[in-house]
């Protein structure tokens, strides 16, 4: 019974991980920008929803506020930080440090406004129901899994069937060729940031109702996104989704063997092993050099 319980919890966590990580994976895969502030996007989306919902705006306006906040943050960061850096050189490390700096600032600004403690959005949906004897599942778990299925399928469809999606994949393969075909790489890059940012919204909102939020959660989100992207294979969106779900499951099922304070260590043990043994990840193409 415990194993089933943990597997369902793991699926819920994994669904949220996949939804979070896929945005980072999309941005990093297509633009090669090491968008470390992706965690900050998550924090902004979550706290915008928390503030709007808490102010009694209702669910839909709350979701809209959250999406607007996330997309605006992604686009502004791209325009004001990444594009200027790419203009003069744009080594991996310069971009990483700039992005990291923004992440630190956002975490502390949110902390000053909303406090550094945990906050939760109260909803009856997080109340667990006994499914079969000994297995408790809250409606939010199903919502999380359904959201992941719908949004990830939509993203796959978008990447394969629309012009923007194809342009994004083209950009990851060969930016020069994109320019030759008369497309504007900068506009495609902005599209990557808009989509990569907006896709964290469902995970941010569900997390605000399940485990709750604190300003430092951005770090955790970023670590998970990075782990899922690398374990899945950089440049492979389906790989990231798969890795996100697997990491969630592994964290949860690890509780059968170890205490809960080791869950994060499990994720990073897996990441560490992949980097050393198989840097190209589950579904990755190229090597790490």
């Amino acid at each position, binding site marked *: 019974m415990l194993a089933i319980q943990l597997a369902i919890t793991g699926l819920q966590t994994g669904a949220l991980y996949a939804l979070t990580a896929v945005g980072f994976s999309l941005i*990093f895969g297509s633009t090669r920008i090491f968008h470390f502030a992706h965690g900050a996007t998550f924090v902004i989306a979550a706290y915008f929803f928390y503030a709007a919902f808490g102010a009694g705006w209702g669910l839909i306006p709350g979701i809209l506020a959250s999406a607007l906040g996330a997309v605006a943050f992604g686009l502004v960061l791209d325009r004001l930080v990444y594009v200027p850096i790419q203009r003069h050189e744009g080594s991996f490390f310069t971009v990483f440090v700039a992005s990291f*700096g923004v992440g*630190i600032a956002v*975490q502390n*600004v949110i902390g*000053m406004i909303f406090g550094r403690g945990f906050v939760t959005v109260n909803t009856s949906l997080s109340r667990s129901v006994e499914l079969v004897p000994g297995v408790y599942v809250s409606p939010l778990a199903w919502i999380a899994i359904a959201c992941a299925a719908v949004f990830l399928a939509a993203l796959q469809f978008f990447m394969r069937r629309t012009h923007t999606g194809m342009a994004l994949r083209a950009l990851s393969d060969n930016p020069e060729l994109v320019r030759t075909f008369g497309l504007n790489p900068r506009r495609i890059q902005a599209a990557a940031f808009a989509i990569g940012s907006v896709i964290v919204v469902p995970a941010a909102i569900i997390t605000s109702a399940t485990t709750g939020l604190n300003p430092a959660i951005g770090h955790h989100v970023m670590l998970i996104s990075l782990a899922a992207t690398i374990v899945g294979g950089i440049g492979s969106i389906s790989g990231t989704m798969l890795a996100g779900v697997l990491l969630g499951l592994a964290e949860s099922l690890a509780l059968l063997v170890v205490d809960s304070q080791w869950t994060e*260590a499990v994720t*990073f043990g897996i990441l560490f092993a992949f*980097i050393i043994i198989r840097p190209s990840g589950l579904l990755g193409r190229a090597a790490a050099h």
Partner: protein
Amino acid sequence: MEAYIFNLVNLIAIYSILAVTLNFIMGYAGIYSLAHAVFFGLGAYSSAWVAQHVSPSIFVSYPAAMVAAGAVSLLLALPALRVRGEYFVAASLGLQVLSVTIFSEWKSFTGGIGGVLAIPPVDILGLEVFRPAQFAVLSVIVLVVVLLVINALVHSSFGRNLRAIRDSESAAASFGKNVPMIKTISVVISAALAAVAGALYASYLSFINVESFTLDTSVLVMAMVIIGGTGTVAGPIVGAALLLLLPSVISYFDFLPRTEIGSLQQIIYGLGMTLLMIFRPGGIVGRRSGT
């Protein structure tokens, strides 16, 4: 007031050692580690353990700390040999997160969350050094020694090899340089010297816990290196002094809320990092634009 200033001198010296040693692998070998606080912590815990159980002599506890950190740093050298760039950042992050869990769970060695209490003051040939003023002399001397060691290394053929590897690993290898060996040695040296900072920290405060060795510390040290200037001699020390003086400067302005000093410090250095990367990637001391 005097004690306050000497306390600041001690902290700046200790963090300068961390920044200088991180700069050694970051600026000269291109190994961007987010796990430097691990070796700081290892140095602190091992020297505390040795001081309590074996001998508080500086000639026993400090070398023990260096050996412990140097040995564990092979764990960091392993991914450094295999991968570069974002992969290595991820691996070092993983090591940092794992280590914090181990630091807070391995109670017999680290005291868990509660930490290690009553660490005896360091003993130098029978002299117990614990007053901030006395300790400031010790910590500055250690900083100077570390600087001299690093400087000698950077200007030796070893340092040239490191820079060659940073700029092009395959070119260095094709000139017959033993790239894995050089990288491993640089990581071990950096970690062992960072452990000295940990040993100083433990014997100075006589109390340590895991809070001082988290990702936040690694990030702070990295910010010091970057803001000061990666790959420069003076940069890391300038960065360390600036970031540690920041809280005092902020508290000087009365209109800013006292409770938010920590947050304001982090916001300032976060935005500082971002702005520097946009306008002056070489840091405050650095001249070249970017490395």
